[in-house]
Structures are given as C-alpha cells and as structure tokens.
C-alpha cells in the first residue's frame, strides 16, 4: 500500500520534470532561429552602418560607399501618412465594436477585420494597384500608404475594442451622470482612459507594417532619388532591401544588409517605446 503511494508520487515527480524541461526545450528551440537571424544581421550589417550610410544617397553601380537616405525619408513619409489614414478609422471601428457589440453591422465588421488580418499583404498590394494606382495613372507614395493603412486597421481596431471593453462601466456612468453627451463621454472619458492600450496597438501595428515589402511593390514602387512628392513613386527601406538584395553587386548587397539592420533596430525601438508607454499611461481602475 505504502509502496503504491510512493510509486505514484515518484511517477508524478518524473512527469512533472519531464513536462517542465520539455517546455523549456521547445521554447529554446523556437527562440534559437530568432537569435541566429539577429546575430547574422548584426554581423553582416553592422560594418555598413555609419553616419554617411544614414545621411547619403545611394551611389551608382561601381562606386563604393553610398547610403540609404532616400529610403529612410521615404519610409518615414509613407508610414506617417499610413498612420494618418488608418488611426481615425481604426479607433472609430474599435469604439463602435465595443459600444454596440451586438449590433447588426458589428458582427460583419468583426468578421471583416478578422479576415483582413489574414489576407496576404501582396493581395492588398494588388487590390490597391487596381483601385488607386491605375486610376491615378502611375505609382505613388500615397497609394503605398493606403495599402499599409489597410493593414494597420485590424490590429488598432482590435486593441481599441479590447481596451475599451476593460474600461469600467462606472466611468461611463459617471460621465453621463454629469450631463455629458455620448460623444463627450467617448472623447473625454473613455478614450483617454483607454489611451495606453490604443497607443500600444498603434505602435505595434507600425512595427508590423514598417517591414512590409509586398504591398509597396505595386504601389509606391521605389525611387533611386530623394523624393517628398507623395503623388510620385517613393523609395522605402523594405523596397530598397528587396531591390538591392537581389542585385548582383556586392556593394549593393552590403547596403541591403545595413538597411535590414536599420529596420530591425527601428522595430526594436518601437517595441521598447510601447513598453514604456504602457507603463507610463497605464490606467489603474
């Protein structure tokens, strides 16, 4: 009898440690490629990152040196415009979904958002090509921004909805009880209280789209020169990486590695900013 109990306890212990080490091993295996990619990127790219690399234009084939200034400026402009387009729409959708979760359109909106999240980015690029690029008569930075904005909507709308749902009902009641209208309650009480969640949704979506190449191929196209005209083709970091990485020239491939590292550092910084923002604007209810 006692033997049986002892044996049961021992088996349980063994199972326990097997499970524990299994979980650790799988996590390690999953993280390993990530670390490897980062290591490889740093190793390849770190030599090309210099001040000149960030502030100079690419040089013609055959000449050494040159930078990616046009791509950095292009990415900044395209992402900035994408934010301006996406943020109001996404927040509006999020507010609607959390306020009227059972309304007729809400179910359709939620389904569309889930679907949109799963649509391959190249498909979005093609659709925007048909809808915007063709009618406009040529590639343009703004069409790239629209494509990226569409990709930004699902994560921001979801983040807004989820955060607003967690804002306690008491806040809403308090606002209404002071004679605030529905609009005032949303703008002055609910959205500020949900700020941290919405903001982290926005930043993470920026991180997500800043590396997107496919939707930009058919839209903003790329541009070897520095341009700030949003109705004309514009370069961006992912496009530059794509173009230079498939080129046969060592010099250009080196630039691509450097640009990849710049992009990764940018995304890394965004993640850190998210963490800080979440902590700083965290709302205790």
């Amino acid at each position, binding site marked *: 009898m006692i033997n049986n109990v002892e044996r049961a306890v021992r088996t349980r212990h063994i199972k326990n440690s097997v499970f524990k080490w299994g979980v650790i091993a799988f996590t390690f295996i999953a993280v390993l490629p990530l670390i490897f990619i980062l290591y490889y990127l740093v190793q390849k790219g770190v030599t090309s990152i210099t001040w000149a690399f960030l502030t100079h234009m690419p040089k013609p084939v055959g000449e050494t040196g040159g930078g990616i200034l046009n791509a950095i400026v292009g990415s900044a402009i395209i992402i900035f415009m994408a934010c301006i387009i996406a943020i109001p729409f996404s927040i509006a959708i999020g507010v609607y979904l959390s306020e009227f979760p059972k309304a007729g359109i809400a179910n359709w909106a939620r389904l569309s958002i889930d679907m949109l999240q799963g649509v391959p980015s190249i498909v979005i690029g093609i659709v925007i090509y048909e809808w915007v690029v063709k009618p406009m008569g040529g590639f343009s930075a703004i069409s790239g921004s629209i494509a990226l904005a569409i990709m930004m909507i699902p994560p921001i709308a979801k983040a807004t909805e989820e955060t607003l749902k967690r804002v*306690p009902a008491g806040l809403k009641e*308090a606002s209404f009880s002071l*004679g605030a209208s529905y609009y005032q309650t949303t703008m002055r009480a609910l959205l500020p209280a949900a700020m941290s969640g919405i903001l982290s949704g926005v930043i993470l979506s920026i991180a997500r789209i800043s590396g997107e190449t496919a939707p930009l191929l058919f839209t903003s196209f790329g541009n070897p020169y520095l341009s700030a005209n949003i109705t004309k083709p514009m370069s961006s970091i992912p496009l530059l990486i794509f173009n230079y990485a498939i080129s046969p020239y060592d010099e250009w491939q080196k630039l691509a590695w450097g640009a990849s590292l710049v992009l990764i550092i940018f995304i890394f910084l965004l993640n850190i900013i998210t963490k800080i923002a979440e902590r700083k604007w965290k709302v205790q209810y």
Partner: protein
Amino acid sequence: MNGLFGERKREVINPNGVEVTGLLSSEMLKMAQYKENERMNKLQTKNVNCWYSDFHALRDINMEMKHNTVTALIGPSGCGKSTYLRIFNRMNDLIEGFRLEGEVLIDNKDIFAKDIRINELRKKVGMVFQKPNPFPKSIFENVAYGLRVNGVTHKKFIKETVERSLKQAALWEEVKDKLDKNALSLSGGQQQRLCIARAIAIEPSVVLMDEPTSALDPISSAKIEELIWELKAKYTILIVTHNMQQAARVSDKTAFFYLGELIEYDDTKTIFTNPKKEKTQNYITGRFG
C-alpha cells in the same frame, strides 16, 4: 397687475394658485420661494412601474419628497431601491430592456416627457455611485469635467467653482496642494468625496447617492455622512443604503422597499421606532434581508 411686475409675479405664484401680493422685494421673493419649497414636492412619482425585460422591478410606487430633505431608501438587495433612485436621472435608460410606466416629476415636470433633454436633466440631478469612480485624470480636471462638458470655458470661473465644490465636499484642505495629481492616487474615502465635489460642481438641485459609503472604512463613512447632513441645506438628497444606522443618522424620511414594492414611507424616526408594517419591523430589527 399685468404691467411692470407681470413677469416676476408669475414666478411666485405657486401651483395651488395662492398669489403673493404687494411689493415684490427680493426678500419677499426669497420668502415666497421658501414657502413654496415647503409646500411643493421636489420629487414625485405617480404609479411608477419598471421592468427589466420581463422582470417587474418596481410596482406602483407613489412617493413624494420635499426640497432640502434627505430621504433614505432601504431594503434587502434586489428590492428595487437602486432602480428607484436611478429613474430620477434616467440612468436606467442605459440598460437594455428597461421600461417605465407612470409619472416621474421633478419640480412638477415629467422627466420622461418627450421634450425633456436627458443631458439637461442629468445636469440638474447629480449622482454619487457605490464605488468611487473618479476619472483617471487630475483632481482638478475631475471636478471641472461637468463644467467642461456643459460648455463652460471661462478659466477663472472653472477655478473658483472647483475650489468651492472641493470645499463643500470637505476635501479642499487635503488636496489643495496637489490638484494636478491623478485622482486615483487618493484614498477611497477621498475619492468618494471627490466624486461628491464633482457632482455638486455643476450645481444640481437634487443629489442621488447609491450606497455612497459601502466601499469605505468607518472613518471615511462618518465624514461622508457629516457631509450629507451639510449638503441638505442646498440640495434634495436621495440615498440608498444597506446600513440601517446610517439611514437613521442622516435622513429625514425613510422608505422601505421590498420585492419591488414600497412597503412603508414615513419620517425616519417613525420608521425606526414605531413602524406600522410588520415587514418593516422585521427588516429593521434584522430578522430578514
């Protein structure tokens, strides 16, 4: 008499049609207003029935409350006292499936009439909730919120009103040096007094309190009770409470609700010393509920 004083005279004719004659000095106006308050019901409900979908929450409630009084609503959980409280600022309208029949009057006006603007109504009827629910904003902005949403932009006026409201809510001394601090950094009792200051900043004439001290410690509760007693001079107060002693201490009149019905409504003293109904007697002596 329809000449010069025509407009002002109308103000002091009370609904019973008794006219105030002679010279209308401001003193007399005040006196007349006072007498009118004495006679007139500030709040009144006639045959009010409420439903949440199929659930019949209130049954034929007839009650009237005078100006400058504190009325306590007591009864076991789910008896409808909170529902009753919340019909006066139409807070129940937010709940899906809520339906009301009968008349709810404030200053003899039906607040469920079509031409009533719900925001205007809620400006006149302040509310303090069970759980302190300050906005995650600064202390100052919390009190100023009601003014701002009602379109007040005059900076000096807002500042003065915030100060006055915080003083009225007996919180000024504790927070005057940290008005820009987040309201959530205050203690529970302070938060609740802040919510009271927020409610009275827009100068309502009625203040509804839904178990305002149930989440607070005894000392904070005592402060709030003291405050209620002082606020009575300016407002008509309706308070829901589970605390019998509190009802006895702060209120002039007490209403006992049970299963959606108003069992007894009388002077607080009478309710607690000499109730007419057996159910009331049983409840206040703690035999059920």
